Each structure stands twice: as C-alpha cells, then as structure tokens.
C-alpha cells in the first residue's frame, strides 16, 4: 500500500491528460465509470460527525461532493471498524488502515450562542498525521454551506487545487411540453440542493450568467414582441434592463471585473457584438460583419473576447481584443462550433460542437490547439465552468425529451447528471462564495 501524500494525488492529476488521448469512441465507453483508466479515486473515510442528526447530514454532503468529483471514493460506513470517534483525540489508525482508508475526515457539531459550530480534522491514515484541523461557524440553516466549505478544504489540501463545492448555479428551470415550455430563472447549490425560482414564468428566460462577485446575474428574457437583457441583483432582488434596443438583444455576459456586459444586438437581421459599460451606460460596437456574431466571453484578464461567428460560412470560434481588434479564427476541425466560454483559470476555452447528428461539449487551448471532445449525445449544449476550471456543467436533451443538467470533468472521465430532480437548461456556475 503506497502511502498517499499530496504529491501522489497531484501526480495522478497530472497524468490525466494521457487519458484524453483516447479516440472518441473509446472514451464514450468509460463515461460515468470513475475507476477506469490510470486514475484510482482516493479511498476516504467520512464517518458521521458527532453532534446528532446535523453531524450525519454534514458528513453525507461532504461524501457526496467528493464522490462526484471523481477523485475520491468515500468508503461504506458499514465497513468502519472504529466507531464513535471523538474529534478531539487522534483516531485509531490501524483500524482505518485495515479497511484501506487513505484519508479520514471526522468532526464534531455543536451549537454555541445559537450558531452552528463545526470542528473537523483531515487525517493521513498511513502517515498517521493530521493534515487539517479547522472550525466553521454559521447560522443553523446554513449547515450545507459548512459541509461545502469542509469539502473545499479537503479537496484543496489533497489535490493542491481550489475546490468548487461552496458555489451556486443559476439556470433555467423548465416545465411544460416542447412548444409550450415555461422557462423560469432559478438558482440552486452546485449539488442541486436548495433550488428556488427567481422569475414567475411569464417570460421565457434564457442564458443567465453570474457576475464575478456572485451578487448579480445578467440574463435575457424573450417575450412575443422581442427580447430584453436584464441585470438582477440577488441581494436586493432589484432588476433593471440594460436599455431598449431596436431589434433583438441576446447572449449577455459580464466582463471579469463585472463592470461591463458584452452582448449581441440584431439590426435588420444581422447580429453584431457590443459591449456596455454599466456605470456610464455607454455602448461600443465590437464587430461590424454581415455575419452572425454572438456568444461573447471574456478572457479572465479581460483583454480578449472569444465569440461565435459564421463569417467563414459555418459557425466557428474566433478570438479578438476586448476592443474588437484583430479577430482571428480558432476552430478548424470538422464541425460547427458555438457557445465558447473561457475557463476561469485561462487554461481552456469550452464550447459546443456539432458533428453530423451529434452534439458535443469540448475544450481547446485559447490558441485553438489541443482540442478535446468530452461528451457526445443527441443534444449537449452551453457549457459553464466550475470556478477551479476542472468541471463543466451543461444541458443535455434527448430526442423528444426534456433538458437535464449534467457535469463532466475536463478529462471527460467523470460524466454524470446533476442531482437536481427537475428539467433544467442553461446553467451558469458562480465563483466560490465568500
């Protein structure tokens, strides 16, 4: 049994790109199977935290988060030898080695002055050493956020990368049949918990996007007479339109600093990309091409915009300066490319790709090289990045079926539905919450 360290898991992560060199057909077989390939998820024991029901609930949320990342394998609590751990004392390591747990997370929940207080520790079982000991406090109804913060701490300590569990997803909740769909703006935790509606369903909501401070959402509403782009403040619930335009306005997205919104404006059938400074409300035109120009997405440093254009005759990805300068085509492989989204780390651009009768989610480097197709189905669309740039959420729709939210990691190895029971589309992932 190799002793696990941060280094070994990092090595495993570094080995992931090799998996992605498999041809698409081979990759399709391994979806959902997180144990295939040369990465073994790390066996981790997460016994119920002390402190009653809430302790058990918190442990369960942590285990589910880590399991869904594909990098960890939470062990069955029925196999645990040591029971009733006390977070204040060192665990009995041999009893955890016996079940091959490489890491152990235990903790204790208490209520102090009406606030939930959770102490937890992360142990390296084979090194017999404490890796983390932290305490989180919050009001009792926020117990899930504590569980997410602990998940992020464990993930970061063991992978060396920031987590993405204490985040929310804004999306479009769908109801009704095709042709008479009701599409409402909705928000939930990244694991599908705590969903709530933000609009009443009277207009068709599309393409919500988070601002970098997680407090504002920009989205488009389609009504019989036309479309509008709104900015909604989650805290104040105040919403305002960015203005009245002649023609369709759509595809809004914030700049990384939240000060600008890039979007498409259609005039006389032709769509071009504009950017509005939200303070001064001044608008600048970034493209002037008789082609479709839409789906702008800023680079994390704000200096560039990747977008979708059919100026070559079919929809492809292009990158230009944030002022509209030097547009350059990025996508050259066979297929139709749409919905480019720059990763928060700047490492990749994710996109939707259509080949023949299939749709795919894929990633490429910002210079257009190293393209990798991660998914294939009847209709996969609209990727959004987890804030650490390792996981993508997107919409998947079957022929004649409703749309569901799915996630896939950047290697294409871990593909699974989001545990939100309803129909949904157009997800947008928030940054890590504070």
């Amino acid at each position, binding site marked *: 049994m190799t002793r696990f360290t941060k280094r070994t898991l990092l090595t495993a992560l570094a080995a992931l790109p090799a998996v992605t060199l498999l041809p698409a057909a081979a990759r399709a077989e391994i979806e959902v199977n997180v144990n295939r390939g040369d990465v073994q998820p790390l066996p981790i024991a997460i016994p119920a935290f002390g402190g009653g029901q809430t302790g058990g609930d918190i442990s369960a949320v942590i285990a589910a988060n880590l399991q869904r990342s594909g990098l960890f394998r939470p062990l069955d609590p029925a196999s645990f030898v040591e029971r009733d751990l006390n977070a204040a004392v060192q665990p009995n390591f041999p009893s955890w080695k016996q079940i091959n747990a490489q890491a152990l997370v235990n903790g204790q929940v208490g209520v102090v002055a009406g606030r939930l207080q959770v102490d937890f520790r992360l142990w390296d079982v084979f090194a017999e050493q404490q890796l983390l000991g932290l305490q989180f406090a919050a009001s009792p109804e926020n117990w899930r956020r504590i569980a997410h913060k602990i998940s992020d701490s464990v993930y970061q300590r063991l992978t060396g990368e920031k987590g993405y569990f204490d985040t929310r997803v804004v999306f479009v909740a769908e109801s009704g049949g095709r042709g008479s769909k009701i599409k409402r703006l909705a928000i939930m935790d990244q694991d599908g918990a705590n969903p709530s509606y933000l609009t009443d369903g009277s207009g068709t909501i599309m*393409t919500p996007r988070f601002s970098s401070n997680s407090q504002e959402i920009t989205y488009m509403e389609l009504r019989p007479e*036309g479309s509008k782009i709104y900015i909604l403040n989650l805290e104040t619930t105040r919403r305002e339109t960015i203005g009245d335009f002649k023609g369709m306005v*759509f595809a809004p997205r914030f700049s990384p600093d939240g000060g600008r919104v890039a979007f498409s404006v*259609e005039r006389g059938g032709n769509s071009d990309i504009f950017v509005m400074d939200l303070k001064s409300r001044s608008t600048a035109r970034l493209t002037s091409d008789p082609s479709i120009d839409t789906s702008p997405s800023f680079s994390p440093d704000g200096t560039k915009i990747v977008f979708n254009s059919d100026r070559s005759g079919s929809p492809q990805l292009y990158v230009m300066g944030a002022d509209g300068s030097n547009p350059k085509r990025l996508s050259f492989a066979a297929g139709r490319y749409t919905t480019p989204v720059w990763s928060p780390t700047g490492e990749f651009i994710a996109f*939707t790709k259509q080949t023949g009768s299939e749709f795919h989610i894929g990633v490429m480097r910002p210079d257009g090289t190293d393209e990798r197709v991660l998914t294939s189905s009847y209709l996969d669309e609209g990727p959004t990045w987890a804030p650490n740039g390792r996981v993508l959420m997107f919409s998947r729709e079957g022929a004649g079926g409703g749309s569901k939210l799915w996630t896939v990691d950047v290697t294409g190895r871990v593909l699974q539905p989001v545990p939100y029971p309803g129909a949904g589309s157009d997800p947008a992932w928030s940054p890590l919450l504070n």
Partner: protein
Amino acid sequence: MVTPRNSGSVVRLGLIVAASLSVAACAHKPKPAFPTQTPAEAPVQRPPERPTQAPGAGPVSTAALPGSERDFVINIGDRVYFDYDKYSVRDDAAPLLDAQASWLKRYPAVQVRIEGNCDERGTQEYNLALGARRANAVREYLVAHGVEAARVTTVSYGKEKPIDPGAGEAAEAHNRNGHTAILSGARMQ
C-alpha cells in the same frame, strides 16, 4: 409565449400539416412531402381539407370572412419554411409570400410581425441570430413586393417555439420557419 391570437393558427396549421402528410403517404410521393411549399395554386387548395378533420371538435365554420385573420391563415398561409441553417427565401416559398404581399396590400390597416423560428439542431444563441435573419428575409421580401415597411416588424424566437414537438428531419423542417403573425387591423371573423 405565443399570443392567444397566434396559438389558434398554430393548431389550425397542425391539422393541415397532418392532412398533407397523409395525402403524401398515400400517393407514395418521395419524401420530403413537407414542408416543401406546394406550387402557386396550392395554398387555395388547402382549405377544403380542413373541415373534414376532427368533425365535432371545435366550431364548424363557414368560409373565412375576407380580410380576417382566418382568411389570411387559411386562404393565404401564414408560414414559409427554410432550409437547414439557411435564411434565404426558398423558390417554393415565393408564391406564398407573393400572396401574403397582395393580401396585405388589399387590407392596408393590417399590421404584422414576422417571427423567425429554428429547429433544435443548433445552440440557443446562434439560433436567435439565425431566426432574426429568417424573419428579416421574409420582411424584406414583403417590403420589396410593396408592403409598407412600417407595417412589418420582426422578432426571433430561435428554437424556443417549435410548432412540431417531435424529433427528426420532418419535425425539424416544420420548425425552421418564418411566421407572419397578424397583430392588428384584420377584420373580425
């Protein structure tokens, strides 16, 4: 999203579609029997089929009052179809748009909105742009054939408002369309 005024015409069109498909099947015509626009005289040939559909369901009406929305939908046709990822008006759609233009010139109080629609084999934002092109193509055709520009507005519904909820090529062909919706000024039936 479709206004009550329009939803009625969608239902009517659905019946006509079903009728023309079954006719095509009987005749063993090579597909696609739909939505290829039938030749110039065809639009006025359609209406007799309709009253025979679903007898007893819904009002059995007399002939449409000239200048009414019903007259426009049944006797002229309110929808033209497009090829995949294309927005140019097809040759086989021109006769129907010619008839729309003539009708609109005959009833100058009528205001219309051209709604561009797409099939689901594209992503949302791209399809909003494509639907806008289609709506504009229909508008330009009507204006070029004498309809006052101020009477014709456009909107794109992208792939949000499919008239055919099915999947497959036939449904996609239905859903790639430009719908001429009467907003006001038509005679009441």
